[in-house]
């Protein structure tokens, strides 16, 4: 993590579909952020609740916009901490 990097926490609801979690992680890395913490838990709706902490030097909204476009991303919100 470089000195200019900032850490961000995101909370996502993700469809339980083939490679859905890979798409999330791949998008994070391809958009020049690094995954610092990642957890995924099945929820009562049959989807994944995902908490992810990322670091990067780019504005976080540039990543959020790309994640929100993923078909398997049902919702996304910034979170205050890695344990949200």
């Amino acid at each position: 993590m470089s000195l200019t990097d900032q850490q961000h926490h995101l909370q996502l609801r993700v469809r339980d579909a083939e490679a859905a979690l890979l798409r999330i992680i791949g998008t994070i890395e391809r958009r020049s952020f690094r995954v610092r913490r990642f957890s995924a838990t099945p929820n009562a709706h049959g989807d994944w609740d995902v908490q992810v902490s990322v670091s990067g030097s780019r504005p976080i909204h540039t990543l959020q916009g790309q994640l929100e476009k993923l078909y398997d991303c049902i919702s996304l919100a910034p979170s205050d901490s890695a344990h949200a």
Partner: protein
Amino acid sequence: MNASQWLIKAMLAEGVDTLFGYPGGAIMPFYDALYGSDMRHILVRHEQAAAFAANGYARASGKVGVCVATSGPGASNLVTGMADALLDSVPMVCITGQVASPLIGTDAFQELDVYGLTLPIVKHSFLVRHLHELPEVVREAFRIARSDRPGPVLIDLPKDIQIADASELPAYVPAPVQQREAAPDAAVQAAAALLASAKQPVLYAGGGVVLAEAEAQLRSFVDATGLPSTLTLKGLGALPAAHPHLLGMIGMHGTHGANLAVHEADVLLVVGARFDDRATGKLSEFAPNAEVIHMDADAAELSKLRHADVALPGNLRLNLQHLQQALLAHGDNTALPAWRDVCQQRRDSHAARYDAPGSGVYAPALLKRLSELAPDAVVACDVGQHQMWVAQHWRLQRARNHLTSGGLGAMGFGLPAAIGAQLQNPQGQVVCVSGDGSFMMNVQELATLYRYNIPVKIVLLDNQVLGMVRQWQTLFFDERHSEIDLSDNPDFAELAKVFRITSRSLRDASDMDAALAELLAHDGPMLLHVHIDSKANVWPLVPPNSNNTQMLDMHINTDAPLPPPDADDDSHVPQPMATEEVCA
């Protein structure tokens, strides 16, 4: 009815009339279902060409293009065409056969994880694990491919699913087309106020206008507001080439008029464009004094690379209409006429010249002439110098008439894309402009032209070198010309004849009009092999890591710098480049 037969019926219901593909082991049940069906299938000679042909079909028509391949190498050969569709937002559905479900994950013959392989280059993808998923998969695949910002969608279909009994599947119903909402009125009013008070406003429009089918709205906006306007490579044709307010293309090979106007703009209205590095040059020095109004259907593009002072997400057509109404309500912008005059004078004083010395064919002059002879033609380019010459000199009237691999820059795109474009409009004129490097990447598709008698006209600009690479090596790598020599090219006119395609060679400018007339009049496919100067360059050129005012420009004889067109304007003077600053 099995699932393959059901799938073909579903695609017919989606309006698909043509598939581009190549059969093989894991897709054989699908090809068996094609036999005797109402679906037209074009057998290409390489799967990459299937993807590019579907891509060209989609670009020219706005409809979803569909390509088909088998598992393993068939699937991997589609990859370049899929990536091209992602980067240029082309609606495509790519169907690949997969080994039977019990064999997935066993390293079976021609098993390839195409689903995993293509994750970063698709808008979305599906691996059909169960027959009952198929209707929803197909419906969603077509909806996703064409909706919002279009793109490629993969359907990976295991062989056992293809032959499964589908008699219990429901009749297929396509998903309804959903219109996006317009931007909030407050944002539209803010944008209008900014433009109304601007002293030096400029409009910069891109391919998003084409994707949104908003050409009419853009033309109405520019006509009504009189904003000096520039287009990106992908936006070319959204305003006709001779439009009085059009300053030309922006960016690395853009015009002086466009690049200088944008650099000096105090308000920049960006419509369906994304601040691509080939358009902006050095981003930190792009339009340094401008407040930005950014209108784009893809919200993720807003403030991605350049902060938007006013963001207008959503429906591009509605947003253009609303902004036009709101801006006109402010009354005349009294500063605009003088600024427009400056822009237009600068454009005119730097207009391209076609008076090349010597008796050889000057490619820009040929392309300009051909576009005048065939004003309604679709032109499909390959990638390299000829691609930029088309962008600069072809007098485009309509954006969907310009098929160019803008984002990926994929050599080999041109001929198959032209095939796709011709098949979606059999009565139209389609021209493929290629270079000797690019052409050899999908040369096998001459066989497809012959088989189906597809009347694509090929203009092969042969400089016996990888010209764009040579130009960069000359300018930025101390003339160390590494691996660019193609002087042992075949005789392309003879090569075409081997494929039973009519051909002609052209060497002298004095024969140009006759050769072009013969080409356009020929009934069926034809190749015109044009010999051009191996040292010709594309000018102007903004060097890497430079801002768009730092254009290099040379006279068409490639030796003498152009005389200053304006004593007060030294922006054309070549700027020295430090080698360590060079990056592609």
